[in-house]
């Protein structure tokens, strides 16, 4: 069974976001970029399934400009067997991403596609579900546990009310939540070995997908700052302020 893992290049999760003063977008010039943390978790899960002997091959795929090559090399160092770079703009809409991935799914026929549940830049939380819809596959989003059972996969999902366990037929789409696993770090020998692993490139044309724009970002602004607060010096002062100043306690 092949596992396909789509990967997004995003601003590093611990870098402070700066909005351009002309409100045209977020300033990414010279910013530290990384693999989206949820994609790292998705990839780790795929690699573990291969190490358990359940999967035969892990294929990483990323869509974007030349720089996504960095994240694909990281994916290869972390255990992907080969990778596919779909050359396109960096900020494609979710639906276009899902259409491109569907075309890759048709070529590769993976048993599972594991994605991150959301990207920490656009915070959309859409691609996995859209891909499942376009392929006509079942989906288990927000996964915190994945277990293969013959020709089924059992997934525990983190939902608002607690946890839910589902069983899906294969092929299936899974999106990874934070507690699915703790991703490993790439070791130096693996980084060296990754350089020899194959990276294929494809274009939307070659995949037979016509990209279409549905959304226009008119502006990006910073949220209004909160009014500066004050320091209180004791529990009793705090209670007094909450009662008499903020009036949030009876």
């Amino acid at each position, binding site marked *: 069974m092949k596992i396909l893992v789509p990967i997004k290049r995003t601003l590093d*999760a611990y870098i*402070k*976001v700066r909005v351009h003063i002309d409100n045209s977008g*977020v300033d990414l010039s010279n910013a530290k970029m990384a693999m989206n943390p949820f994609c790292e978790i998705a990839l780790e899960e795929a690699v573990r399934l291969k190490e358990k002997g359940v999967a035969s091959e892990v294929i990483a795929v990323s869509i974007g400009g030349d720089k996504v090559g960095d994240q694909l090399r990281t994916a290869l160092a972390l255990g992907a067997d080969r990778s596919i770079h779909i050359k396109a703009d960096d900020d494609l809409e979710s*639906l276009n991403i899902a259409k491109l991935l569907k075309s890759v799914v048709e070529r590769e026929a993976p048993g599972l596609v594991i994605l991150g*549940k*959301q990207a920490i*830049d*656009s*915070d*959309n939380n*859409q*691609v996995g*579900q*859209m*891909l*499942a*819809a376009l392929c006509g*596959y*079942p*989906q*288990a*989003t*927000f996964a915190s546990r994945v277990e293969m059972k013959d020709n089924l996969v059992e997934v525990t*999902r*983190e*939902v*608002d*009310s*607690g*946890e*839910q*366990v*589902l*069983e899906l037929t294969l092929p299936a789409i899974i999106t990874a939540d*934070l*507690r699915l696993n703790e991703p490993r770090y790439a070791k130096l020998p693996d980084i060296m070995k990754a350089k020899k692993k194959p990276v294929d490139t494809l274009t939307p044309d070659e995949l037979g997908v016509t990209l279409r724009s*549905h*959304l*226009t*970002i*008119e502006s*990006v*602004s910073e*949220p209004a700052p*909160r009014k500066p*607060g*004050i*320091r*209180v*010096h004791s*529990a*009793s002062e*705090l*209670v007094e*302020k*909450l009662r008499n100043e*903020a009036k*949030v*306690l009876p």
Partner: protein
Amino acid sequence: MKALVIAEHDNKTLNPATRSLVTAALQLADTVDVLVMGADCNPVAQSAAKTNGVAKVLLADNPACKHQLAEALTPAVLQVATGYSAILAASSTTGKNLLPRVAALLDVAQLSEVVRIEDKDTFTRPIYAGNALARVRSADPVKVITIRASSFEEAAVDGNAVIEPIAVSAVQQMSRFVSENLNNSARPQLEAAKTVVSGGRGLGSAENFALVENLADRLGAAIGASRAAVDAGYVGNELQVGQTGKIVAPDLYIAVGISGAIQHLAGMKESRIIVAINKDPEAPIFQVADYGLVGDLFEILPELEKLLA
């Protein structure tokens, strides 16, 4: 213009987020219908029908809809979608699971976690964990949107809409519900609570988390947690507040032993009053706190509890 609101519920009670969805939908259309999909969920439809501004409640009561799996609900939504220029759901795990699947099959974009409706084509939504707000214009004929319920007032409860049962074919063999493990706490629900007390890694252990619970009970508050506290097993995942957990905006949010990472702030910085209790005066949580108290939580929490007795 007609809008369709997908009711958020657990087959027994209507989640009040649905009433916020109706408020949002009325900003997009003059006729708003609510779709209730579930099993044995008539009480939910009754309650939805009382929401002010709702024209009609469509009730798809079908055993195959019981667990609200996306594979079962999507065909039901598509079946009724014709004629609606907007389809709205809560940005809950159910809504986020369902709506992208619906949007893809309608060949339209989906807008996630909308916090403001500028006009019928233009929406504002947070990106980068709420560190930026994007104003997005959609060219699609149908807007498929998840709404951050806390950003919209709940519609009043004095309506009297008709309930129209509909037959849907929701049977599917791709996914099967196996089991669930629900948080059956008697405390107020986190997303809807007026007061939230959240604990972080500073609590140190699941046993110590009782300090947070005791304070919450004194205040009639819901409990929340940081990712670190959930990862360490102090509390269940359903209590995580943040970019990838729940987004809350109570009147009072008390953060105890939480450093204030951007991903946590994303889930609570719209709260009206924020209190931070942390022993590190440099902790970033103090930058968003209205009232900051520097000190040891193991001394401060018992004192607060006594003062509020």
